[in-house]
């Protein structure tokens, strides 16, 4: 009886000790990732596998420059006053310097366009969408610059550009028209919340 009891206890102790050591190692590894123990022990750095490079980290931020993500973009060009489609307008996507023409319906073909999220806010609040710049040209119309086109990662995006016909009698000074597409309001709220003090009420728990 006693002989059979001790080996079981021994195994239990061994198992408990191994679980403890494993959990300690895991937690230390977690701290190493965040840099808390980086100065105390040297982490083992293994080169990432090819498949790991496209894994989205928990923060949701994907660095775009080494491995840009793409989405599909289609541009519609309208006459700003009549709201009718403008065929044969030329669209330039500045980030790729490629040019596209609109068809009879004022539409470009679907364009494979990069999702470029500004690195300015990388460590503060990750942008929800990328931003692109387009310029539309058509003879007889003011050039139209369209900034901040929201590019959604992995899903199609549509945007509209308005161009305004030049009136020789009224338009004495013809210059490009700028349209700055705003950030999404959900991201703006997130950005403001990032620096909000507990005493500064916004859309907080106190006033949903």
């Amino acid at each position: 009886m006693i002989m059979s009891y001790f080996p079981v206890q021994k195994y239990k102790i061994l198992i408990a000790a191994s679980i403890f050591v494993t959990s300690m190692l895991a937690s230390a590894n977690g701290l190493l990732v965040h840099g808390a123990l980086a100065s105390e022990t040297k982490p083992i750095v293994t080169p990432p596998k090819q498949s790991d490079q496209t894994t989205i980290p928990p923060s949701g931020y994907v660095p775009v420059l080494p491995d840009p993500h793409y989405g599909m973009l289609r541009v519609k060009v309208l006459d700003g006053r009549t709201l009718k489609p403008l065929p044969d307008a030329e669209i330039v996507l500045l980030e790729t310097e490629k040019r596209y023409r609109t068809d009879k319906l004022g539409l470009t073909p679907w364009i494979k366009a990069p999702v470029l999220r500004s690195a300015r806010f990388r460590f503060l609040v990750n942008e929800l969408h990328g931003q692109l710049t387009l310029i539309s040209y058509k003879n007889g119309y003011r050039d139209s610059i369209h900034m901040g086109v929201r590019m959604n990662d992995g899903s199609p995006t549509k945007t509209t550009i308005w161009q305004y016909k030049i009136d020789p009698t009224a338009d004495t000074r013809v210059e490009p028209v700028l349209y700055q597409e705003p950030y999404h309001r959900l991201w703006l709220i997130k950005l403001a919340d990032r620096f909000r003090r507990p005493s500064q009420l916004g859309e907080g728990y106190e006033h949903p």
Partner: protein
Amino acid sequence: MRLILTRTGAALAISTLTCFLPIQPASAQTYIIGSTGFPSTIRVAIRQNNAFGEPDPRGPIIYVSTINFDQYCQDVLPNEWYPTWPIASLEAGAIAVKMFGWYHHLHPVTVGGFTFDVDNTVNFQLFRAQSDQDQTNQAYQNTRNLAYVMPDKTIFELNYRAGYENNPNWQYRNAQKMSQWGSQYWAALGRTPLQILEFYYVNRMLVTIPGVGKG
């Protein structure tokens, strides 16, 4: 003196009578699904832009534009919800956007001489013409024939706020408002649009709108 006595006597008689009658408080007109037609258009007040080219919620109204109701909802949804969110979140949002617009279509306001249903800013819902996206359009069309109403089928204002990311946002449930980030949270966990709506708007129900089909 005689007049005062008469008035007092009448008041007494009425108060005695009302003691035995059920109390029916005066209320604004209510609109019931089934007896209220689905809106075909909505009047959107366009406010003056601020210096950055964005409509200013406190800016003067420039004009009122009459817009197709379906198009209005489709041009609001991608500006209020994020188009890459799960479809269940977008569908819950599509129902909220539609019911909010419908409620205000039934309760127009007059400001500065302009009569309108909604404006194009966050005073109501953020509307940008021609900003519809395929994913949000799909969510709207999937739920076009559905309404989320009071138990007696009264149309009410489905309100919502941004809320916090990665959080169910219980505080919004208590306030009877949907949290947009909360809808994304629940949709990522596999909840249906109805389950999301039921979480935030307690004691309401989903009904089919008679005579209105999916898109």
